[in-house]
């Protein structure tokens, strides 16, 4: 897979795209897409036409048709394409001269075509060429970004065992890491968490670390293991060796493998593989299985070209985004009336033929998404995993992120309908706040644009956007506020809370300092509302203030989640766990789940009391921290 970031179309208002130097292949790319934009599928392969038909039958638009055409083209060119490798721009140029007749579509170009197929409906559709041109240019600028990322890749290394991991999340930059490595490199072998996607013929599709092409042999080994077990009428789930786990997930013609020594339980890792697969479906739909039925040797790397930034961002999020294991989404805390106002206008829009309307914002740190409001057309419901994947796709793709630009891109929601493309209109109101409108219609761009303008007007008028900014700055619930809260409302009992009888001198010192956790040594909590599919997480406070500590806490929560929900015998009701790092308390009821972390020396009785208080607190403010009523699930 190429390292350029070119995952979606962006009808950007970039004032001077042409001023940026364009690499050869990008120039070629724009010329190719121009040719392609005639809308003629240049191929004599009958099966392609068939595919188009199938695709259309499924209600997906022209976009996917084009995509599939390219798929086939590449299927034919497979071997030569692979041999070319990266940076053989001249050769491509030469080939390009012979035009698109023979299905000349290259990896990067291809991905561009595949994902920007909606360009005909783009704002600049008065001239297709213009729209294409600008997208080609923007991809060029993105390629520049990518190379910058490469330079700082060592700093940005996230899980790397060999290289020091950064302590601040802000330092993490999206994108492929360590492309120079392969399975022979010691550093590669020592990476803590590998992810691989390969085809059932053993062709590498994605690798978190290292260059896929150099990992062809390794990939073949993984395939051999899977098929060896399969031949015995069985299916391999995982292999354990020391602290390492190799987890396998077979999804039709797609094999996913995770090799990890992060001590995450098997159940977590396999859930993560499911999400990685979902991310792939989100980009390509499940109809890619047909390509494999037709041609088992089908090479799909070109289709995903440039999207590895999306996968790395997703994988990165596994370590710090609780949504990934809780299967729930988080909301930005907002006054009830503000959220109501936002919900009302979204509902308005939804009634006019929009399938889903989501108003989201970026978390202060990192790229986690928080929902401001979301609305679905009747009977349509959005799975939290789909929201995670959609949010990740949009936030990790640079092209969407240009403020005031508007993008229109085919995407598939794997939990909603894995077979069909939807079309996503994405617009950023400001650096953090963005709107996603999803529709089944591929020609709805102008309608959605109008919707957006209406929404924007209302949001500005009702001060929603400024409230959002204020809330983003203020942050969410803080464990320190729990004690304040208690003192205000429950006077006498809080004094007991503040003085755990197992206090050690250290603890007294800690609790006397401001900002060292909440009452009874409470450091952090996660509360998941089962009915709402939403969770709320307290802000990190001291002593959980470095990225490393936050990641460790999330891993501990994740382990606790798996332990509580263990298959066959779960869910358990309560769990108390004390180790050298924390006291963790978990409480699972049919209504909610609470995960709380305390000082490892915390007193058991006080910790339980505090958990009860947290639950009460959450219930007291649920109007502000959750999206109630207006959720699509109540339809």
């Amino acid at each position, binding site marked *: 897979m190429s390292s350029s970031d070119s995952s979606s179309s962006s009808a950007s208002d970039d004032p001077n795209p042409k001023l940026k130097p364009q690499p050869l292949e990008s120039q070629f790319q724009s010329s190719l897409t121009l040719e392609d934009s005639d809308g003629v599928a240049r191929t004599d392969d009958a099966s392609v036409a068939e595919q188009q038909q199938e695709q259309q039958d499924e209600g997906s638009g022209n976009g996917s048709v084009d995509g599939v055409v390219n798929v086939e083209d590449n299927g034919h060119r497979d071997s030569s394409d692979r041999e070319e490798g990266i940076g053989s721009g001249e050769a491509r140029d030469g080939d390009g001269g012979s035009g698109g007749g023979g299905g000349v579509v290259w990896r990067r170009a291809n991905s561009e075509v595949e994902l920007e197929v909606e360009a005909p409906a783009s704002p600049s559709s008065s001239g297709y060429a213009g729209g294409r041109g600008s997208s080609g240019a923007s991809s060029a600028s993105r390629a520049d970004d990518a190379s910058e990322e490469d330079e700082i890749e060592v700093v940005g290394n996230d899980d790397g065992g060999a290289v020091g991991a950064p302590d601040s999340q802000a330092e993490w930059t999206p994108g492929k890491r360590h492309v120079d490595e392969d399975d022979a490199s010691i550093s590669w072998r020592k990476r803590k968490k590998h992810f691989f996607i390969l085809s059932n013929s053993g062709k590498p599709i994605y690798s978190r670390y290292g260059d896929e092409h150099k990992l062809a042999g390794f990939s073949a080994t993984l395939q051999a293991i899977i098929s060896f077990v399969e031949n015995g009428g069985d299916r391999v789930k995982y292999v354990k060796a020391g602290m390492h786990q190799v987890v396998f997930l077979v999804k039709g013609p797609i094999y996913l493998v995770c090799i990890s020594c992060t001590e995450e339980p098997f159940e977590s890792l396999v859930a993560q593989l499911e999400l990685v697969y979902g991310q792939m479906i989100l980009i390509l739909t499940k109809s890619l299985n047909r390509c494999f039925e037709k041609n088992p040797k089908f090479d799909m790397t070109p289709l995903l070209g440039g999207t590895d930034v999306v996968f790395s961002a997703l994988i990165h999020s596994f370590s710090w985004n609780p949504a990934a294991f809780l299967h729930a989404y988080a909301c930005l805390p907002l006054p009830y009336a503000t959220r109501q106002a936002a919900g009302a206008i979204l509902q308005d829009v939804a009634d006019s033929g929009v399938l889903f309307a989501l108003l989201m914002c970026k978390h202060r740190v990192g790229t986690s998404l928080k929902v401001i409001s979301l609305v679905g057309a009747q009977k349509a419901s959005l799975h939290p995993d789909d929201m995670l994947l959609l949010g990740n796709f949009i936030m990790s793709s640079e092209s969407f992120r240009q403020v005031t630009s508007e993008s229109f891109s085919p995407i598939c929601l794997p939990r909603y309908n894995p077979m069909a493309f939807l079309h996503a209109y994405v617009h950023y109101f400001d650096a953090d706040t963005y709107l996603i409108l999803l529709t089944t219609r591929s020609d709805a761009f102008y309608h959605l644009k109008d919707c957006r303008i209406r929404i924007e007007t209302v949001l500005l008028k009702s001060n929603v956007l400024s409230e959002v900014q204020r809330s983003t700055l203020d942050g969410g619930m803080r464990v320190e506020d729990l004690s304040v809260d208690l003192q205000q409302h429950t006077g006498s009992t809080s004094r007991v809370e503040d003085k755990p009888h*197992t206090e050690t001198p250290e603890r007294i010192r800690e609790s006397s300092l401001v900002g060292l956790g909440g009452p009874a040594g409470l450091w952090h909590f996660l509360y998941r509302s089962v009915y709402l599919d939403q969770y709320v997480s307290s802000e990190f406070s001291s002593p959980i203030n470095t990225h490393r500590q936050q990641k460790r806490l999330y891993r501990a929560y994740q382990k606790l989640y798996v332990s509580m929900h263990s298959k066959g015998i779960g*869910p358990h009701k309560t769990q108390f766990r004390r180790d050298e790092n924390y006291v963790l308390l978990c409480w699972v009821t049919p209504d909610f789940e609470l995960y709380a972390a305390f000082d490892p020396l915390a007193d058991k009785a006080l910790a339980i009391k505090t958990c009860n208080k947290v639950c009460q607190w959450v219930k007291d403010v649920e109007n502000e921290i959750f999206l109630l009523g207006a959720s699509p699930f109540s339809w």
Partner: protein
Amino acid sequence: MQLCIFDLRRGQQEGQELDKILFFFPADLPFATQLSVIGLSEGLITFTRIFSPDAACEVIEAERHSHVFYEAESDIWMVMVVDKSKESKAACQVDALRKVLKEVHSLFVLFHGTMRSMLEKETSGGLIRSHLYPFITDYLSGKPLFYCSIPKAADFLTGRKLQLPSFHDCLMERGTVQMLTVGREAAIEVQSLVKVLECSAGTTSCYSLVLFQDLLVSTTLSPDDTISLFTYAVLRLTPHALSSGATSWSYLQRTNAGSQVPALSTITNSGSVSDNIYRSQNNCQVKRPLHHNRWFRGNDGFLASDIWGTDNGSQTSVTPIVYLQLTEERMYLCAYQHKSLTIILLVPVSSILNGEQGLSLVKQQVLENASLKMLMVEEKLSKGWGGENAYHVSGYRYLLVDDERVSRASPPAKVMTLAKESLLALSKLREEVNLEKKRAKCSNKLEICVRAKNGAWVIARTSRGKELYMVLEKASETLLYAADSVEKFSNRYCSGVFSLD
């Protein structure tokens, strides 16, 4: 269930793959199938070493099978394949299954020395194959090997299913010894008995093991040797083992005794190569220390067995020789039994010059010097002995493991009263704790209390190398109450090791 042992240093050339196989159960499986099991195992050992060079493959978990790995000696691997549909209770008990492999191996080494040394002694592999086959089949089936392997007798095998460890066993710990708690006075008696015993042998380098019922009273052996020998004693030597053998196997014993050698060749009919494998050593009398019902108590109180043949001169049974793990020293194993008391005396082979004759002198010495003391010790221990349920603590179902070597648990009959859900929850919890232990080595303190779906409290505590697992089904609703119960137990029975500081 399949079980294989293979040596990665052998059969590395194409066409010689069969040479790798040292043991395969069931032996009548086609070689292609055997090789495919070993091929997958070998492949994954190599593969996992890419990432984890120090600890290669431990388990392959597939939808229908679990493959449990144990590297018994360097490059000699034991792999057990469990069919989950047939052994659903055993599935997922990976650590327990690995302990089975470990136990088989340590018992083998106790009687035959290491596999590697045997392979070095006789490089064709015939010797070790001829030893492993009866040894492991005896161990696994708990019955003479020829019933398992003759196709006609297949219904015997299905009729008596192998008992693999299951979640029901989560309140016991294989590979540990169970100790008898003795009062101060009795302890002094035992101490003086041990001294007398070891003096009787006339040499300073002998060792002794004293058991009461199936419980260890005293040992002067190293911890590892103690565990191996204790395991063997409980399997074959204690009064309980002797009597259970006599009752349940007498029929088979009578009808088939003596047919050992012909049977050995019968089983090899399945393939020409295995023919060579197993028959090659037939003339060199393979000893089967785990053979059932071959131990009996002689008139002098010493246990004897015909497993090792009889001495030509005196018509007495040949005394078995065991290997000590650390020193690889060879020792004569003499076992004496008085009522519930079993005493094992290990005498260095090098110190006895004229074999059985010399040994019988030693035995005589022991009887002369120690029989009175043995009577007294037996009496004292019997008086203090609380019976089957001696270690039952009412309201608790527990397992206490000390340093992974010594364990004490609620009596099995009491554990049986627990709900399946509770046992499943505990066995899952134990898996989690095992992972934590692997990660952090013993030194860590860990406390986990889980309230399972059925309302039972399932608890694990580790502290300073000690582990406590507990199921409280009738505890009250609250965590505090459950925690309090553990605290009380800890204070009373574990000298407060698990109490909060």
